């Protein structure tokens, strides 16, 4: 029984653990279903990240430079930097990535982001160096 539980935990962790490149690959597979998609573009992600989609943009909390620590626009809570180059803990956990994209896109855009939009933003974040 103990062994079974251990196996279950390991299997679960393995399915949740990933790297930013794994997410990019997964998102690319989904985005290819969208008409006219060629590949993700860091420039497009940069524009999307900084554009106001209503009251807010991604940078409202993550700041204009995602290599810097951010601050929640409403509560003032500190936010760790988003760019993997300066914060290797980012884009490692599938559950976290799915949760925060879902929540934050709904807050900023009033809807979920498309795979292309997510991939563009991730490509932009990965293009940043320390």
């Amino acid at each position, binding site marked *: 029984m103990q062994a079974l539980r251990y196996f279950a935990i390991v299997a679960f962790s393995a399915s949740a653990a990933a790297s930013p490149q794994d997410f990019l690959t997964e998102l690319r597979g989904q985005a290819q279903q969208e008409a006219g998609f060629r590949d993700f573009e860091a420039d497009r992600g940069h524009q999307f990240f900084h554009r106001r989609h209503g009251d807010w943009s991604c940078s409202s909390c993550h700041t204009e430079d995602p290599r810097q620590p951010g601050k*929640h626009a*409403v*509560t*003032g*809570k500190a936010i760790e930097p988003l760019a993997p180059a300066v914060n290797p803990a980012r884009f490692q956990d599938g559950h976290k990535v799915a*949760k925060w994209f*879902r*929540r*934050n896109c709904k*807050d900023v855009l009033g809807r979920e982001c498309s795979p292309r939009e997510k991939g563009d933003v991730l490509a932009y974040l990965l293009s940043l160096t320390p």
Partner: protein
Amino acid sequence: MRYRSLPFLLALTLTAPVLASGSDHRSPPLDPGYVAECGSCHLPYPPRLLGAESWQALLGQLDRHFQADAGIEAAALEPIRGYLLANARRRPTGPAGAPVLRISETDWFRHEHDEISPARWSRVRSRSDCGACHTGADRGRYSEHEIKLP
């Protein structure tokens, strides 16, 4: 006064620093799972600040949580619900046991803060920003000994 046993002295020695640090029954440590989930966006407010009916109402609409989407998966939510309800405030927080969604609108909050002047409040970003005065708020500590007025 004579202490007859070494165990008694030892017990006194071990508990005294704990009592002095303020970790009494009114400020138990916050649940790490709760802090990780809810504390990633805002101060992890201790369960005792709201009644069970209020926590239930809040958790029932997390996808519309004060104009933000704070929805989480059911599997992650249930342990948090259990923690909040088990440690919720027992005394009423609002009229006739109705849920109060904002801690700052509870009867006890108004009473505890009724001596704070509007001028003082104007120096605080929001009434939800407990840490502006309560220096131990991020650890769930609200003792009168840990207040620094702005």
